């Protein structure tokens, strides 16, 4: 959807609507058009041997289709670097309609003009 001239992607995560700007902090890819998937995690046994690699559907992530950078779908936090976030909007669902109430903060460091 478009809000104040900005493209915002809406995701439903665990019954809650979350909204992020459709710009990946890495190189600007249309992150909200990527796949929403469970994150892949390794399972260890009591002797710290890997017994399984599984998809944890309860903790979905959204994956930028340009380079694969991956963000927690509920919070927008980059799962490999918590300093990096998608820019989040506050979304409120009311009477079957979704209201976007306020622009989020600028994403953290990665890909900023200050790089270097």
């Amino acid at each position, binding site marked *: 959807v*478009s809000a104040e*001239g900005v*493209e915002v992607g809406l995701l439903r995560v665990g019954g809650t609507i979350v909204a992020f700007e*459709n*710009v990946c902090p890495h*190189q*600007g*890819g*249309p992150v909200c*058009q*990527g*796949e929403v*998937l469970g994150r892949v995690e390794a399972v260890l046994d009591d002797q710290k041997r890997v017994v399984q690699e599984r998809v944890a559907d309860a903790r979905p992530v959204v*994956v930028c*289709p*340009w*380079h*694969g950078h*991956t963000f927690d779908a509920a919070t927008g936090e980059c799962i490999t670097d918590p300093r990096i976030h998608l820019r989040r909007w506050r979304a409120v669902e009311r009477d079957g309609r979704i209201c976007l109430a306020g622009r989020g903060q600028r994403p953290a460091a*990665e*890909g*900023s*003009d*200050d*790089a*270097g």
Partner: protein
Amino acid sequence: MMPADPLHNAERIVRERGLDRTLIIDADVHHIAIIKFLGRFMDPPWRRMFEVLPVESLTPADPADRRSAGRIKRTPIPAPDGDDPQRAARVLVRDLARIGVDYSVLFADDMLTLSLHPDRRFQAALSRGYARWLTECILPHEPRIKGMLHLPMADPDAALALVEEFGGRTGVVGVQISLTGLDQFQAEPCAKVFAELEERGLALGFHSTEHWPRFPIFETFLGAHALSFPAFNAMCMINWIYSGLCDRFPRLRCVFFEAGAVWIPMLMARLDRVYRMRPPDGPRLRKRPSEYMREFFYTVQPLEQPERAAELRMMFARIGAAQVLYASDYPHWDFDMPHSLSRLSFLSASERAGVLAQNAIRAFALQPDSLSLGEWKRRPAVPGAADGA
């Protein structure tokens, strides 16, 4: 599932960052999966082989999943077809314009692993077929694409003949050696090829790649990909320098492709250290290895994002910003947008113009007067448009 438009956001970024007013030359873009089509450009009897056999059985395969199980969406570049052999190139030029590129230096994916083929005659035959297709079907019709031939270095005579036949054709700016077959590349038998390239003013590209089976020590694609690109470039560069080829061919412009930037200062420091300790082992050198390295050109895609911004500034200072070329590597999964370089705040305005275009003009001996901004950059932006042009 593909997104509705895999390059969504690209044009807007180019406009927002003012790159629509800046000439951009992309030193490294790729044809995808053209090999099946190339059979018709090969000499008999090779041509028949392509007509009757599955192409997959003719070329060395790499088991890596570059699309990350579909998480990464590649823009589909159509394979060439017989009815419209320029179609794939047109799509490529259109897509590159959307990421802000005005001119591109093109090379074929399939050539990157050709040097692994055990039959040297096949390497030479397919290199020749590619040169024929590139110079007949692409370069004369697409002035915004410049091309590099593939040199079959396992057969220096065939490589020399290829340069002599195709090196002067429209749009050819250089040749590439695929470093997957580095062990076939011997300095002395190949010296006559380098002499011919220098005489003709053609650039010599060393194209790194990842080919997982060449690094079976790695259990994951992550490991193979992270190390193989800089490793191939570094191994080739070490041999090139210690063979004394820099001084033997001082006018030959060498370009090292696609290994990021971090490896370059590391190798400079390592090579200088051992050279100081054992100068008798490098009798063909007239200066420190790092001094030769500062004469090479580098495409630094995929550019690393180190923990501290100052590290990147140090790397560019060591390499020399004038030696760095922007390259997208499009449409590969780890492609870089032009602002991956233009946003570096430590670059001066002239250095920024250099990495985006002017350094490539020097590296590939392009004629500046013949270059212009792409068509869409010359159109006014549409106010409020979500995605620029």
